[in-house]
């Protein structure tokens, strides 16, 4: 088998990310998720246009919940795309190509950026529209970026599941669990571990983004460990694990259990 030079590794990864990213954007699962996000947005917009009592803090949750579910469906789309070789029995065929499995996985991780960027831009447009109708707090900008981190983290979850449990049912089980299970109505400090947790101060919300990005890298490194275990992967794994541990510690120390200013 021929191998590609180190210089072109980046170019190949980018090319794979571009192709798979376009596929993800056209995936029926991602489009279904986007549909849910638009439904949530429509509920809020209808409220702002018909009811003067509508506020972002009380009614904007339908927008946030819609985009969270879109991220869950993006995870399903990434998982389905990652299971292509398993489904079509083309693993051996692709194994004869100069690109190895780790490179293809890195390309798929890059591909997750496409749905993340599209949905974040869409959420940004919704927030800008909302700010023309109701009073939107400044921290919402951080929450919009949080949405991108959530897409990356759940996309990596889809990748890791496909790598370690190659079954078309494993990712839907996680999706059902994310839909049905929630930490509870009574706010508690440990809720910061939940990827959907929304924090009420800019610094804590930023730390939660760092936490999600750390988890995304950790899960991608875990996925690549299925095929190759080299020094570079070990460095990424340890670095991301340290990032997750540090951000989680900051979040647990900084978040207060009351709903409102700290944990929304």
């Amino acid at each position, binding site marked *: 088998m021929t191998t590609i030079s180190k210089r072109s590794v980046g170019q190949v990864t980018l090319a794979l990310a571009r192709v798979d990213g376009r596929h993800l954007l056209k995936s029926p*699962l991602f489009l*279904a998720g986007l549909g*849910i996000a638009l*439904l949530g947005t429509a*509920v809020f917009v209808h409220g702002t246009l018909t009811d003067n009592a509508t506020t972002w803090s009380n009614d904007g949750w339908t927008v946030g919940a819609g985009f969270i*579910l879109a991220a869950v*469906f993006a995870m*399903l789309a990434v998982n*389905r795309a990652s299971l292509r070789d398993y*489904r079509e029995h083309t693993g051996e065929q692709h194994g004869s190509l100069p690109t190895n499995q780790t490179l293809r996985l890195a390309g798929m991780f890059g591909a997750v950026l496409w749905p993340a960027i599209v949905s974040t831009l869409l959420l940004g447009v919704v927030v800008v529209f909302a700010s023309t109708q109701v009073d939107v707090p400044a921290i919402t900008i951080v929450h919009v970026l949080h949405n991108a981190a959530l897409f990356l983290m759940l996309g990596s979850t889809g990748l890791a599941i496909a790598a370690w449990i190659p*079954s*078309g*049912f*494993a990712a*839907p*089980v996680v*999706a*059902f*669990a994310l*839909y*049905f*299970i929630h930490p509870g109505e009574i706010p508690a400090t440990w809720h910061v571990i939940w990827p959907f947790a929304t924090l009420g101060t800019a610094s804590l919300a930023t730390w939660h983004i760092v936490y999600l990005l750390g988890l995304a890298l950790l899960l991608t490194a875990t996925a690549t460990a299925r095929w190759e275990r080299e020094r570079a992967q070990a460095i990424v794994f340890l670095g991301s694990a340290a990032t997750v541990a540090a951000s989680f510690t900051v979040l647990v120390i900084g978040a207060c259990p009351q709903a409102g200013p700290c944990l929304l």
Partner: protein
Amino acid sequence: MPVVKSTAGLRHTARTVPWHPMVIATVVGATVVASGHARLVVIPTTLLAAAAGFAFDDPSHETLAASPSSLIRRRLGRLIVVIPPTIIVWATLVSQGVSGIDETLTLVAMFAGLVGLTLGIAGVAAHRTGGRGGAVASPVLLLALIISALFPPHWRPLPLGDVPGGWPALQARWSTAAAIGTLVLLASCRDPARRRLLRYPTDRPGTGRQHV
């Protein structure tokens, strides 16, 4: 040709059924039930119903499509193999936290509704995915539950919680879902090579649109 397969035929069918979804659903469902949260009984119910959607996943779908055994007969054989163990596992898991006849009937209706819908979706999806509709059925079921939750409780078609009207309303809605799912499944079991139920005016010999 007998309508139902022989025991040996069912044994061979059982070997071609993907069982890993049911194993995953059972393990996760049992873990949830063991956690002791009664309100989470809906999780094993949904997961086992979604796992049943893989019953039609058949790698030899294309090859067997040309065999004398009809699509409905092949699917019936797979359902006979998959549904009884699914019911047994579900009853074992859910019976731990159920009290009263009304709640039992409602959960039975919910399970029947979810299984009916999943099989209906999987049956339709199998036509477009070369006999592998199971992986499509689970996300579509999740989507259906999410869209249902957007409706106010009074109109919610697939209610997972309380609705006005109590147990009878829940039972009626899930029974309707089961009936619709079964009808969709039956419609999807028509052999693709058979004449269409609805014919276009141009479907006549010589136009190139006829379906034999």
